[in-house]
């Protein structure tokens, strides 16, 4: 029972690492990095779902009868694109924030905002 699920547990651990970085980090870029890790581990989770023991990659070829499930792959392809889109936008925002605030630390930005109030 433990062996059968270990893969998922590793994924969960990775996911939580990423998630932890997102919420605990004060540095904006690191937050985005955490977000990427978080998302990528979700992708790994999906792909694990589609894996079938003894099967091969879902490209029809001679001499193979069992293929892994192609659907999760498709979903993850889309999700990867979404991920990179989010990353690009987030980083662009960081560049602007840096220009406007002169800092990329969450606390400092908050402080500057409070002062302005």
């Amino acid at each position, binding site marked *: 029972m433990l062996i059968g699920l270990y893969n998922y547990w590793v994924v969960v651990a990775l996911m939580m690492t990423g998630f932890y970085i997102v919420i605990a980090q*004060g540095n904006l870029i690191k937050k985005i990095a955490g977000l990427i890790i978080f998302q990528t581990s979700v992708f790994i989770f999906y792909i694990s779902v589609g894996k079938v023991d003894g099967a091969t990659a879902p490209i029809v070829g001679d001499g193979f009868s069992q293929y892994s499930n192609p659907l999760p792959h498709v979903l*993850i392809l889309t999700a990867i694109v979404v991920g990179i889109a989010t990353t690009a936008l987030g980083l*662009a925002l960081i560049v602007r924030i840096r220009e406007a605030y002169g800092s990329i630390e969450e606390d400092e930005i908050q402080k500057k905002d409070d002062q302005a109030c």
Partner: protein
Amino acid sequence: MLLGVYGLLSASFFVAMDAVDVAFTEASVGAGISTILMLTTIAITGRSELASHYRPTLALILVLIIGGLLIYGTMDMPYFGFAEAPANLHVSPRYIHDSMQEIGVPNLVTAVLASYRGFDTFGEVVVIFTAGVGVVVLLGLPGRRDENDAEIELINTSMHEQHLVVRIVSKVLIPFILLFAFYVQFHGDFGPGGGFQAGVIFASAIILYALLFGLSTARRIINQPLVQLLSGVGVLVYGSVGLVSMLNGGNFLDYSVLSSDPIAGQHLGILLIELGVGCTVASVMVIIFFKFADRKEALHYKPRETK
């Protein structure tokens, strides 16, 4: 940096999991594009980190709760790699068994991606397009060129003279990369690959060029407004394939009606939409890179704004 490793690592994991196409994409995205973007951002914002301040306890508790919930959720999951799991029994068998007759594309992922779930892919193209527009909005519009182009170039050449060997090697490599991109684009039906991957590879060739020969040189070759237009054209191509199939009496994105023979129609449709995808992705990636790089270059001249 380490993130790039993570990208590579997860990609090799995907290979082990039979997800060739995903590995392909993750390789080019995780290790390539997002690393480059990260680096550019770091270069712009500066790497000097202040003493990092964590707020660990609360975050840790939250993470533990959520992680615990997930572990709890895994308890009833079918085992990893279990062929009889519901996920592998319900919808996907049709993709595996019938798609050769229905679509005739050996790469099942391409078949599902482009035809069965073509609309998702359309959405994906639009997401990328949105990101491109968003980055353009955030980081300035094309045409706003710095006056001191010549000066920038001076710096650039001085910077790149050092890497003479790299430049020559890359010069040889770039045409091959472009060729390879086309191979990936059109070979996607048979092997791993497809529009998205091809687009990314194509864009990375251009990025390589820009890195080594300076932005202004690259800018001379690549007309930014045109590239921007191209990103829209890709979406339009995809959409109009859908509309044409609608006019031909099918449903939106039903490629079977594009030609008298359904299989040929499917092939045509997949080819066209992959082209659209490739077009949009390549141009958006190039745009995004240029926007970031422009910002960075501008930073070299203006003293840092202190507010």
